[in-house]
């Protein structure tokens, strides 16, 4: 059986009279990247802040590496590395001093480990510069270096690609995959972008209004939901051809949307061409979060 590194059971948070988080449960396994997907305001950040000990849960339990975070805070936190929102390090200290600062708060982490993580995130050349001179991508990397200092078993990253450019996003993605696959860490990543979760995660929990509405592998959740968007003329003729093989959806902008299948979709294209319809546009479309939510919640709109 795979080892469970982070276990959350029936987690609740009540602020005032309002129940913000309504009983969330999930487990993280060793070596997997777990996505936490939900629109802004769904309770992702509140949940993550409870996981890292910044907010006290009203009820429920969180276990990191087998230790309860409320009863045994110090032991539990030894197994955890995290970045909550942006990595807000001390701008007036150098990158190295920042790492030294956080190494001082861990047992038995010395210069050697600081050098290791610096090299791992590729900041060796700039590590003695002040953080205020760093670009956002470099800060993000320093944040990761800081999170990895204590050799954690669980890494929690809240919106890790926020504000990064496409190259930075790609780099971050590869790095996170590397940490999970090669180093055996469990990584919890939160995001409001479906495409990102899809590319990065093994499993995903979809959260809405403070509750997990579904936990599943990315494959199960998103396959069968891809669509193809078509444009062609003559329009009516093409529509008839597609209608004869599948259900079609006419979109407002004058295009047609059908389901996607690796084998049949190219055949439909062939049929269209043979029928004398010229296809001007044809592309695969990932389901958007809103659509997925609509489907999963049965029309329950996003707050």
């Amino acid at each position, binding site marked *: 059986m795979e080892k469970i590194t982070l276990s959350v059971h029936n987690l609740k948070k009540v602020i005032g009279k309002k129940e913000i988080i309504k009983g969330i449960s999930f487990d993280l396994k060793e070596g997997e990247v777990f996505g936490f997907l939900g629109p802004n305001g769904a309770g992702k950040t509140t949940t993550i802040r409870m996981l890292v*000990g*910044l907010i*006290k849960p009203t009820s429920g339990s969180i276990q990191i590496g087998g230790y309860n975070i409320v009863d045994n805070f*110090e032991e539990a936190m030894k197994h*955890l590395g995290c970045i909550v929102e942006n990595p807000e390090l001390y701008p*007036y200290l150098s990158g190295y001093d920042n790492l030294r600062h956080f190494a*001082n*708060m861990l047992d038995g982490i010395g210069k050697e480990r600081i050098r290791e993580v610096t090299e791992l995130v590729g900041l060796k050349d700039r590590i003695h510069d002040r953080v205020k001179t760093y670009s956002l991508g470099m800060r993000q990397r320093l944040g990761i270096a800081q999170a990895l200092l204590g050799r954690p078993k669980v890494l929690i990253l809240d919106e890790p690609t926020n504000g990064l450019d496409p190259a930075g996003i790609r780099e971050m993605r590869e790095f996170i995959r590397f940490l999970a696959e090669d180093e055996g860490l469990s990584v919890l990543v939160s995001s409001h972008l479906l495409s990102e979760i899809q590319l990065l995660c093994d499993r995903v929990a979809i959260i809405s209004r403070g509750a997990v509405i579904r936990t599943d592998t990315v494959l199960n959740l998103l396959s069968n939901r891809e669509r193809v968007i078509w444009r062609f003329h003559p329009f009516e003729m093409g529509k008839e051809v597609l209608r004869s093989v599948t259900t079609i959806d006419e979109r407002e902008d004058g295009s047609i949307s059908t389901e996607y299948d690796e084998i049949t979709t190219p055949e439909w294209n062939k049929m269209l061409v043979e029928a004398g319809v010229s296809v001007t546009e044809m592309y695969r479309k990932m389901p958007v979060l809103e659509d997925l939510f609509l489907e999963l919640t049965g029309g329950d709109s996003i707050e």
Partner: protein
Amino acid sequence: MIPLNKLIHNEMMKLIAKKRLVVIAIIIGFLVAMFTYAQYKEVERQREKLGTDDWRTMIQQTIIDQQNRISSARISDEWKKQLQISLQQNQYYLDHDINPSEPGAPTFMRIFLENSIELFIPLMVMVIASDIVSSEHSQGSIKLLLTRPVKRWKVLLSKYITLSLAISLIVAIAGLLSYSISGLVFGYKGWGAPVLTGFTVSDAGLNTASVKLIDQWQFLLMDFGLVWLVAIVVGTLSFMLSVLIRSTAAGMGVMLAALISGAILSNMVSSWESAKYFFMVNLKLTNYMNGNPPPIEGMTLSFSMMVLLVWWAAGLFVSFFVFTKKDVF
């Protein structure tokens, strides 16, 4: 378990990197230089008024006059005692070649401390204390600080100890700078100069029965102790505000308002008796040593110290209670 000294080391590193202490030292140095110049002008003016080198003959004259009056049988014992004290003081000035109207560096330092205990030193302390916690909030680094395997009370304790060290350093800097800068102009003599103390204020007015002369260095030592105490209390209260209020500016504003209201209240609350329980009207501890009347009747040195101690304990309790309990959003 993480040893506390590592955490204190962290806090010191941040404090030094922020260069607050340097700024404070520059401000103190600048003010001391300004006051030294003002004092120098005053001395010059007096010298013009009294004639140049006549202060020795003048003191000699006073001493003879006082001796005559003491030996006269008609005056009361109490009055005689006061004359005796004054005589001793004058004799000392003459013997040690100190012009009483021209202060040496130790005297300047004493006057500087006495005048800065109420507002200036607390202000400098506030510069450090009011952002030591709230800056972590406004920067967002609190999220990193509190997600380490270190309990919250320990994080806060390391900050408080660092603050106490910084406060001690500020008081030391104030002493050092006021001594060395003023000494350039007035000379460094006068450690042993006699200073009057031991006044008690009772309902009948100023009671001089137990007045005695002590050496200036002893007096200075007590002054430093009192200044340090006031600085720690004000620092602790600013620290509490820094925990309670996330905005550094707002915390500073509240503390500043309290300190200034204290300075104003001291001048006008003599009939509002319960105002004596405010910490800010109890800051001028050195006044008790000089025999200046307290702002409200019935206030004594030990009363003021008790009031400050209660505020200190309450501030510390609130800081730790709130910091260990509150959710960080």
